[in-house]
C-alpha cells in the first residue's frame, strides 16, 4: 500500500472506481481493497470495501502452515460474472499469510477452507478481489481473468 501511495497510484485507482471502471485486486491487491491492514502495524488501505486484513491465526489447527502455500478449493457462495462457466468448486493457487475479513457478509463471493473458512473472493458492484493467484491457477485462473476482461466498462 505504501508503494501504491508512493507511486501516486492510490488516487487514480479510486478515481477509476468512481468512473465505474471494473477493478480486480489479486492477493495483496484484494487485501488493499479494504479499510485497514494489520500487516507490519496498522495502516490504511484503499477503503473501497468495509473490513480489515489480519494474519491467519491457525493455532487451533495443528499441522496447518502459515503462509498457506499451494492449491486449495474455491467455492463460490453466489453467482457472479467473474465465475461464468466455471465448476461449482475449483482449484486455485494461494500464497498468503494474511486474509481479509469482510464487515458485510454480502461482499463475500467465494470461500476457501484452511482450518478457518476464509473469504477467497469478494465483490461489490464492479469491484472484485481474489486472494488466490488466477495467473498461476492454470485453466480456472485463466477463465477468471478472461471473465474479468470481458466485463463491460
Amino acid at each position, binding site marked *: 500500500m505504501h508503494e501504491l501511495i508512493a507511486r501516486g497510484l492510490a488516487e487514480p485507482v479510486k478515481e477509476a472506481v468512481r468512473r465505474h471502471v471494473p477493478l480486480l485486486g489479486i492477493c495483496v491487491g484484494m487485501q488493499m481493497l479494504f479499510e485497514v491492514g494489520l500487516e507490519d502495524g496498522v495502516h490504511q488501505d484503499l477503503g473501497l470495501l468495509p473490513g480489515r486484513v489480519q494474519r491467519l491465526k491457525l493455532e487451533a489447527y495443528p499441522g496447518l502452515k502459515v503462509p498457506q*502455500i*499451494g*492449491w*486449495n478449493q474455491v467455492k463460490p457462495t453466489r453467482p457472479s460474472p467473474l465465475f461464468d462457466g466455471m*465448476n461449482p468448486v475449483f*482449484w486455485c493457487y494461494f500464497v498468503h499469510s494474511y486474509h481479509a475479513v469482510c464487515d458485510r457478509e454480502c461482499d463475500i463471493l467465494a470461500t476457501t477452507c484452511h482450518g478457518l473458512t476464509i473469504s477467497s473472493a469478494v465483490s461489490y458492484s464492479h469491484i472484485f478481489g481474489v486472494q488466490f493467484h488466477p495467473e*498461476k491457477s492454470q*485453466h480456472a485462473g485463466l477463465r477468471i481473468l478472461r471473465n474479468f476482461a470481458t466485463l463491460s466498462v
Partner: protein
Amino acid sequence: MALAKRIIPCLDVDAGRVVKGINFVNLIDAGDPLELARHCDREGADELVFLDITATHIRRDIMHRVVHQTADQIFIPLTVGGGMRTLEDMRRMLHADADKIAINSAAARDPSLITRGARTFGSQCIVVTIDAKSRDANTWEVFVHGSRRATAKDAVAWAQEAQDRGAGEILLTSMDRDGTRDGYDLDLLQAMHACLSIPVIASGGAGTLAHLRNALLIGQADAVLAASIFHFREYSIGQAKRYLQRYGIPVRLEAP
C-alpha cells in the same frame, strides 16, 4: 476439503537444455525446458522447479530467457534455483518472471541474504534449499556447493533460522537418499516438521508411489519434489495423484 499436497517436478537445466529431467513419452524435444514444462503442466504438476546448473555467470542470460518463455505459456508457479548470490541476481530472475527463488550456498554463507530477500521481494518468493546429510541419530549436517562442502551447521537449526529470517518454504534434500530410490528420509522430514511452521518440500529418494505417500503421511511434508520417479516412465503425475488420493491425501485432481 483442504489445501492439496503438491507434486513438483524438478528439471536440471544446463545452458538452456534439460540435462536430468523427466523422460516423458512423445516429446518432440526432451531437452527443451519449455516442451517439458508444458508436458508437466498438462499432466497436472502443481508447480515446477528449474535448477540452473550452468557453471558460468555469463550464461545466466540463457536461463532468464528460458524462464521468461516458460512463464509466458505455463500458468503454474515456477521456482528457479542455482547460483544466485545477490539480491540483484534474485531481482533479475524475478523480472524474468520466476515466481520464487531457491537459494542454497549463498544463504548458508551469508544468512542475511534470506532476510534481505524476504524484505525486498516478500517471503513468498524465498525458498531456502537445504542439502542435509545424516550425522548421528537424529542429527543432520548442512552441505553446500552441490553437496560437496560440509558446513558444520545443524540442518534443523539452520531451517529454523531460515524460517525466522523470512523464508517462505524449505526445500529439503536428503543427501543420503538422493539418487538411491530407497524412499525419502522420513526421520529428517519429521524432525523438520516438528520445528517449522512454514511448508517443507521433500526431496531425495523417491522410487515408488508409496515413497511419495510416506513422505506426505509419515514425514508430514507439504509437497514432494520428484524427478527420477517420473524419469523412467514408470508413473505419470496423474497416476501418482490418483494413488495418493486413495490414501486420503488431498491432491489437486480435476479435468481441465
